[in-house]
């Protein structure tokens, strides 16, 4: 379209630039701080240009916070969440779209409801479950009297215990227990034409074959989108790891970051190592940002499809 709007174009660029600057400014300041020495960082008025200590500080922060271990754990966490979500969500969506049983809608709703309550609103009881993942079953057995029955007949005391604290399973499982991916898949599966299913049946394929040979290959873009989002979510996990991980060998990056600066805001006396802390911030920030930038198309598509 032919439109002569030089002034408006300039204004457009100005606005976009300003917006970008506002978003980037904090990070710029972080980079500046991460590249200065402690006296420089604490200087008043603050020095606004980057110093030359970036590599030094990054190294120091890496060692101080034991980021090597933390990164390893965080990668395991993120990957676990990605794989868990992708596989489970695909299976569940498959089960409710391509079969016609009465429980289809109830199962759909059951999964749907999990969308409404993110982990933050159920941390206390979820923690209790993580402490003993088999407690639900234990309770059920208790309540139904089966424990008593088994005890009386065989003399065996049933005490189920599976402690998930300080473990990878404990980190990953509760995060896999929500519906985001299932909806993405379900929406996509609903667009698969009936003819495709019928052709597969004529060719002699059973449901699992169909899933493996036809649905999964068709779902690759969805999977990429879901994987990108879930990776970012997994990497950035803070609250849940904070609660269930007390053993530093299992710590994750985001939690470690908060330990780099003491809790109370200190004004005098003990000066926090802001330059290390900011270097640490950069380190923790980098992987998911890189992933998002590289996979931006899938990322955006995944966001829009999971939430709309």
């Amino acid at each position, binding site marked *: 379209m032919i439109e002569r709007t030089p002034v408006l174009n300039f204004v457009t660029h100005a606005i976009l630039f300003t917006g970008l600057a506002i978003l980037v400014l904090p990070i710029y300041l972080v980079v500046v701080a991460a590249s200065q020495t402690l006296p420089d960082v604490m200087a008043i008025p603050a020095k606004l240009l980057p110093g030359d200590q970036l590599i030094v500080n990054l190294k120091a922060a890496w060692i101080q916070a034991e980021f090597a271990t933390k990164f390893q754990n965080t990668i395991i966490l993120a990957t676990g969440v990605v794989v868990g979500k992708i596989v489970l969500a695909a299976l569940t969506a498959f089960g409710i779209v391509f079969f016609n049983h009465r429980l289809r809608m109830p199962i759909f709703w059951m999964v749907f409801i999990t969308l409404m309550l993110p982990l933050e609103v159920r941390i206390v009881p979820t923690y209790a479950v993580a402490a003993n993942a088999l*407690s639900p079953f234990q309770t059920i057995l208790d309540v139904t009297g089966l424990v008593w029955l088994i005890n009386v007949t065989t003399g065996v005391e049933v005490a189920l215990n599976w402690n998930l604290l300080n473990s990878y399973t404990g980190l990953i499982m509760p995060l896999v227990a929500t519906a985001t991916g299932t909806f993405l898949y379900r929406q996509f599966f609903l667009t698969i034409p009936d003819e495709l299913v019928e052709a597969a049946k004529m060719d002699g394929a059973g449901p699992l074959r169909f899933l493996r040979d036809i649905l999964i290959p068709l779902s690759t873009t969805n999977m990429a989108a879901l994987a990108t989002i879930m990776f970012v979510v997994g990497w950035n996990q803070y609250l849940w790891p*904070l609660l269930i991980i007390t053993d530093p060998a299992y710590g994750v990056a985001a939690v470690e970051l908060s330990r780099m600066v003491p809790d109370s805001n200190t004004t005098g006396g003990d000066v926090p190592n802001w330059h290390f802390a900011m270097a640490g911030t950069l380190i923790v920030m980098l992987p998911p940002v890189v992933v998002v930038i590289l996979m931006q198309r899938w990322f955006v598509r995944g966001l829009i499809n999971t939430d709309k």
Partner: protein
Amino acid sequence: MRRAYFKNNWVAALVVAPQLLIIFVFFYWPTGQALYWAFTLEQPFGGGSEWVGFENFQYLLSDGRYWDSVWISTVYALATTVLAMGMAMILALFADRQLRGYQSFRIGLIWPYAVAAPAIGLAFRFIFNPSAGVASYLNYAFPDVWNPVMNGNHALTMVIIAGAWKQVSYSFIFFLAGLQSIPRSLTEASAIDGARVMRRMWDIQLPLLTPTVFFLVIINITDSFTDSFGIVSTMTAGGPARATNLMVYKIYEDGFRGLDYSGAAAQSIILMFLVIALTFFQFKYVERRVHYT
């Protein structure tokens, strides 16, 4: 409606079992437990728990501190939503013009979504620190004009700014997508009708963006109740003097620090209902308002 199904329902049962099992153990069971705990009280010194009906809730609702927390959470939710969505909408409207540099602007406005809450919290805590960092200059020039360590309002402002920064990208992505789903022929028709860029934004784009606005308002408000934990935890730990004690943080404090399981459970239940109500609202409204055919 679909006609083509597979007949083997046992396979169906098999494939949905894993997820159902996990959400039973890690979602429904804890939620049920929270309900149970909210209506009981643990006896001190062991001895099991006692059913107390609505007593926990009554105690909670008469507690000034709880209402303070609710008030702070509401202020936080509204402030971050308005700031984040306002900025995102303006940026999206102008980015949609797709002038030169569009791709760069787009990615530049999307990446903040990937930054973890504690990272944001820490970064802003540094920037707004009264004795180091950029804001310290203000205090140097005008002593003690900015002190989030002591002043509750300053602390809340700082937390709100951090929270809003976090949410801009998400809203931007959705606004941009909403704008791009408006058929190009509408823009062309209105251009032929004489409407210039700003007029088109006002008459055509904004009205057709209303479903997206509704959707994002609900999501932003809901998220601000839950996503805020990482920010508060790293920036202020709920202080000073509980000035930034958001509901989700209070649950954590009461439950894990104060070991008040019943109280934390009751608070969780209330927060759950709040979030459910908001989500319900969203689904009901968003379905109705879709404009384009």
